[in-house]
């Protein structure tokens, strides 16, 4: 097992090298002068030269790339051209925000999706099956921005139950330790902040979790239907086991493998791709940060953020692969 993890970690190196090359080339794949495209048409030659000097764009590509890799490895992710803030500092606040949101979204999606999928499979063609699968079809088809806006209209404007944006209400104090607000509020025993951050998380979390939830529900259902017809399920019934054991242990553990794959992939997407949700709910996360950087042609930010998100994606995939082994002992790693 340990061997496998080490080998996988080694195999990650070329993947990360590839990602770093792509992230690096980004700046140079834009047609024309990168300095010009960052500063716009109104910049004069002196300003352009200053930026080129600052980003050392006049060096050969290989030298630039070498510098990009070594500084990244040393934890220096560069500076924003616009705000001059170090990207690392920005990400330190924004990455936990995105992770908190994504974790919550994938948690809701997994719990509700798996449960709905299992019940739909066990009661195939029942009203619950039809209703939940139609719901899931809507879930994958609904545009998130529309769903988010509708939720804000209903729960924030009309009913006034939930705050429409941000992570904390103004006036609520929280000492941050990890920048995961829920975790921090528990660690500091600050229940006002806990309640406040949970209410802020609820709507964006559910909006973000809708598509994964629908995919997970449909995947669980089809996987369960296949497993429920297996001989070992008949054996489990013939042994006189209670039906919840047959369904939730004997069947679900077997049916969970493809579902786990989907959960891992979806979680990876959420980490890097919560752009819409973060924008609608003004969530100060990575998605919004990178979107603003792209719109503002702040390429050093885009480069480094892509790299960080890609690294996380790769590690989530590794984690998924390791979890496989715990679920299915037949999987061999050699």
């Amino acid at each position, binding site marked *: 097992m340990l061997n496998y993890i080490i080998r996988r970690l080694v195999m990650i190196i070329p993947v990360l090298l590839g990602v770093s090359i792509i992230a690096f080339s980004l700046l140079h794949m834009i047609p024309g002068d990168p300095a010009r495209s960052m500063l716009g048409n109104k910049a004069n030659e002196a300003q352009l030269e200053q930026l080129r000097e600052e980003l050392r764009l006049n060096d050969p590509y290989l030298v630039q790339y070498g510098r990009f890799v070594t500084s990244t490895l040393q934890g220096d992710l560069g500076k924003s051209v616009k705000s001059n803030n170090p990207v690392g500092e920005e990400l330190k606040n924004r990455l936990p925000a995105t992770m908190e949101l994504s974790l919550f979204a994938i948690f809701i999606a997994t719990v509700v999706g798996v449960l709905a999928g299992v019940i739909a499979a066990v009661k195939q063609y029942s009203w619950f099956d039809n209703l939940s699968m139609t719901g899931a079809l809507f879930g994958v088809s609904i545009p998130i921005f529309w769903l988010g806006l509708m939720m804000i209209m209903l729960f924030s404007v009309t009913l006034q139950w939930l705050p429409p944006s941000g992570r904390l209400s103004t006036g609520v104090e929280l000492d941050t330790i990890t920048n995961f607000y829920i975790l921090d509020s528990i660690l500091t025993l600050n229940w006002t902040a806990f309640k406040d951050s949970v209410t802020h998380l609820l709507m964006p979390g559910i909006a973000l979790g809708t598509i994964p939830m629908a995919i997970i529900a449909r995947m669980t259902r089809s996987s369960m239907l296949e497993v429920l017809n*297996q*001989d*070992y399920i*008949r*054996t*489990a*019934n*013939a*042994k*006189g*086991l*209670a039906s919840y*054991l047959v369904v939730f242990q*004997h069947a679900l*553990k*077997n049916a969970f493998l493809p579902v786990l794959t989907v959960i891992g992939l979806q979680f990876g997407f959420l980490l890097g791709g919560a752009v819409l949700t973060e924008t609608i709910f003004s969530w100060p996360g990575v998605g919004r940060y990178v979107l603003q950087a792209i719109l503002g042609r702040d390429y050093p930010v885009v480069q480094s953020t892509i790299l960080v998100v890609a690294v996380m994606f790769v590690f989530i995939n590794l984690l998924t692969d390791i979890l496989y082994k715990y*679920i*299915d*002992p*037949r999987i061999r790693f050699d």
Partner: protein
Amino acid sequence: MEQEPILEVDNLHTHFFTKSGVVKAVDGVSFSVKPGETLGIVGESGSGKSITAMSIMRLIKDPPGKIVEGGLTFKGEDLLAKSEKEMRSIRGDRISMIFQDPMTSLNPVFTVEKQMVETIRAHRNVSKKQAIDRAVELLELVGIPSPRSRLKSYPHEFSGGMRQRVMIALALSCDPEVLIADEPTTALDVTIQAQILELLGRLQKELGMAIVMITHDLGVVAEVCDRVMVMYAGKPVEFAEVTELFDHPKHPYTWGLIGSIPNMENRQERLEAIKGLPPDLRALPEGCSFAPRCKHAMDKCQSKDPDFKEESAGHQVRCLLYEEEEVAVK
């Protein structure tokens, strides 16, 4: 002294209600088994053998399946009147079952220990440790070497024959009074088949349970069964003691089954096969279901479905050849 039967099946009808019609998978099956006895149920694929077994366990999925008529009595108790919960306490405990394919009948993601312990603890109020001890004892009983360490193995780490032994151990967890074996040797190599049959025979002697042996293999029947029921298209067609059946088969279908076994003493050029295919269970012929394939079919076979007729003590047959006026044909 004549023993009371432990399991009685009376005129069982299990039908499947599908979109393309009602499939009469089991259509009037009756038999009984006594403690310590082995009853064979023989027939082609699709003759209703397995559905009969699943009906006894009340494991027919509803919908589409349903036991529409008949009685199931286990030690004087009416199984059809039992709730699902009561049935669950009988399954795996007093009546248990082993299946055809040991490769797929054990859950691949759990250790043998987990699968055995959960069965024992579902029916007996014992600690986990006691359940493990019992599991070791059972694996030993079915001849698995170094049972305590093997408990930690997963099913895929056993060979086919060993897996079937595990399956048998699992079925015997709670000393069942009736063991239903649904083609227990079909998926195994011939040498392993013989070992498993021998094991079942030995265990039956030691534990005194009744066995219902479902098979399409007359060789298996000859080896282990006391009495045999031959089934065709969901109906029993012949019933006899095993030696009587082989010595004096009466039903043309049984003749066909026996005729299609290779015989070392009388080598024939060609084995006799039963022509045609089993009928569509959704649209059974009006008369005898076997008539369209029967070499001895008469006009009246097309219109009249025969009743069971006792030809000699304990030997019943369902064929119009044995009606009064046809005796000459014999």
